[in-house]
């Protein structure tokens, strides 16, 4: 028997807004399978987002959902988690939302190690506004605002998260669909701020400007560049050039912010 997505999809809210060939739908299904596998109840799970294509995800799924302002999803999610720590809080969004306009909220959520799972669908472009370069667009790539090639160097989201103090950091791709739910489920089980970056594809605004002839070609690119961590450990720097390492990249156990704060409250109340 196949997985019953209908249990989690809001009736009447499909079709989604995503273009044909966009990987966001694959990621959404992975997220649903992950939530199902960890057993989070729909009533006690909040899915929060910012603005952008990926941030439209909460509207389709049957949880306590919050579609906020651009880049601010993690900050809204922080308020929910602090006010009601018993809720499972998941934040979703894209690369521009998460590490450009929302970059400050992102690094500080990592630093606090608050128990929120943050899913970033990284398609290297501002898709909703028509394909402007984002902080993860590769140097030299074409975007609507880099007609001569992107002069900016990109962020490595996973490194940024690890550097800022996130205690669980993983990376997958929209091609490796079966891995998405495993990474997300492990992230949700982790007590602390967990970041899951899923490399995604935007054939409409990125692919056609950057010589990807088809959706399949873009998907094959994700397949080709991804190297599992276990394989990467046996490869040389030369062999890893142009590759992206996938899997659970970082994990450590550290005190979690919201529960530490509740301990503080108990301490103060005890006098």
């Amino acid at each position, binding site marked *: 028997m196949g997985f019953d997505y209908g249990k989690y999809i*809001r009736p009447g*809210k499909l079709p989604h807004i995503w273009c044909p060939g966009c990987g966001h739908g694959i990621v959404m299904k992975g997220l649903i399978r992950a939530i199902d596998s960890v057993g989070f109840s*729909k*009533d*006690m799970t*909040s899915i*929060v987002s910012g603005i952008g294509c990926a941030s439209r995800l*909460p*509207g389709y799924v*049957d*949880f*306590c*959902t*919050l*579609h*906020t*302002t651009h880049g*601010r999803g993690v*900050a*809204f*999610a*922080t*308020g*929910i988690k*602090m*006010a*009601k720590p*018993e*809720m499972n809080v998941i934040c979703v969004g894209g690369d521009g939302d998460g590490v450009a306009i929302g970059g*400050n*909220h992102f*690094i*500080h959520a990592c630093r606090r190690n608050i128990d929120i799972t943050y899913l970033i669908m990284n398609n290297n472009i501002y898709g909703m506004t028509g394909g402007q370069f984002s902080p993860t667009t590769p140097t030299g790539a074409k975007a609507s605002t880099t007609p001569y090639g992107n002069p900016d160097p990109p962020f490595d989201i996973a490194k940024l998260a690890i550097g800022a103090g996130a205690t669980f950091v993983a990376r997958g791709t929209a091609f490796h669909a079966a891995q998405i739910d495993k990474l997300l489920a492990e992230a949700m089980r982790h007590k602390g701020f967990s970041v899951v970056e899923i490399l995604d594809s935007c054939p409409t605004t990125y692919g056609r400007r950057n010589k990807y002839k088809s959706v399949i070609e873009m998907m094959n690119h994700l397949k080709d560049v991804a190297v599992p961590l276990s394989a990467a450990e046996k490869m040389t720097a030369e062999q890893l050039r142009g590759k992206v390492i996938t899997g659970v990249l970082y994990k450590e156990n550290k005190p979690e912010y919201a529960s530490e*704060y509740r301990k*503080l*409250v108990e301490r*103060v*109340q005890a006098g």
Partner: protein
Amino acid sequence: MSKKVAFMQGNEACAHGAIYAGCRFFAGYPITPSTEVAEVLSAELPKVGGSFIQMEDEIGAMAAVIGASLTGVKALTATSGPGFSLKQENIGYACITEVPCVIINVMRGGPSTGMPTGPSQSDVMQAKWGTHGDHPAICLVPASVQELFTETVRAFNLSEKFRTPVTVMPDEIVGHMRERIVFPEPGELEVVNRPAPTVPPADYRPYDTSFGDVPPLAAFGSGYRFHVTGLNKAEDGFPTTRAGIVQAEEERQVRKIEKATDEIVTWEEYLLDDADIAIVAFGSTSRSARFAVNEARKHGIRAGLFRIITYWPFPEKQIADLASRVKAIITPEMNLGMTLHEVRRCVKGMTPVSGIFRVDGEPIGPAQILAGIREVM
């Protein structure tokens, strides 16, 4: 039993007022001259089981407040001019999503960094028009330490009742001055909690107008699952671009406050019954104005004071009525004519209105107002 009395700073009284009102969440960012509100709440909230978080910036603080409020908790932030500007993005979000929350904005000079330690009353227009788009605004401008406590309580009540952000705006003098405060006993002041939905979760719609212009808001994690978005939305909470629905929802959001204006607007009249000259003032300036009115009367000038307590909605009817009773109106304020403009709009040329303005970081004293009264005579 005698009441608890203290000698306390305005900002501290504000924090205690918030606790009294049932506030159990604060998110903020340090900024002069409002920081004492955060400092007191960082100590007091854990005692009552609440949460305090210092966020990475003003925008994040406003976001966290809205997120917390959606779980059913009364939530507060405090800031000043530049921080108030940064919060406007998410204040607009709270307006359109109709999430109750309270913002304390202790007014300092501006624009920009301005004079962080100097008093000002120049954010009153930002309180109404700061965020983009049509939206309602409730803004309270207390004039004493005691009133900063009670108006903070009223701000939470209005916020919960009307599902809207409410701003309390003491000027820096009111925020920082110390005076006597008598703490209300529990139960002495009304404390309003947002109504919970009465329908079963399957039938719940977060903007269900069959319950009137202020539909009940469910809490996240209470068994009600719903969607909240800053996009124009339909009664079910989901985004829509259907013209008729968008128009109706926008109009309702503004109407819910407009039609309650008489219930919300508060003011104080002092020696206005026989007055020829009315001073319209608020905050610390109104204290100087009261003194000036007393002085003027010693010299045979029949002056009186109309003290604005609720700035938004503006006391339009009351000011229009005042204009029909007096020969001249003067608006002393620590800005360059924001209240003058509003008063003139209400007076509609019935009575001459002139202003006394000061934006140099010094308060407007009684002598300056008295001089203004003599000038008009």
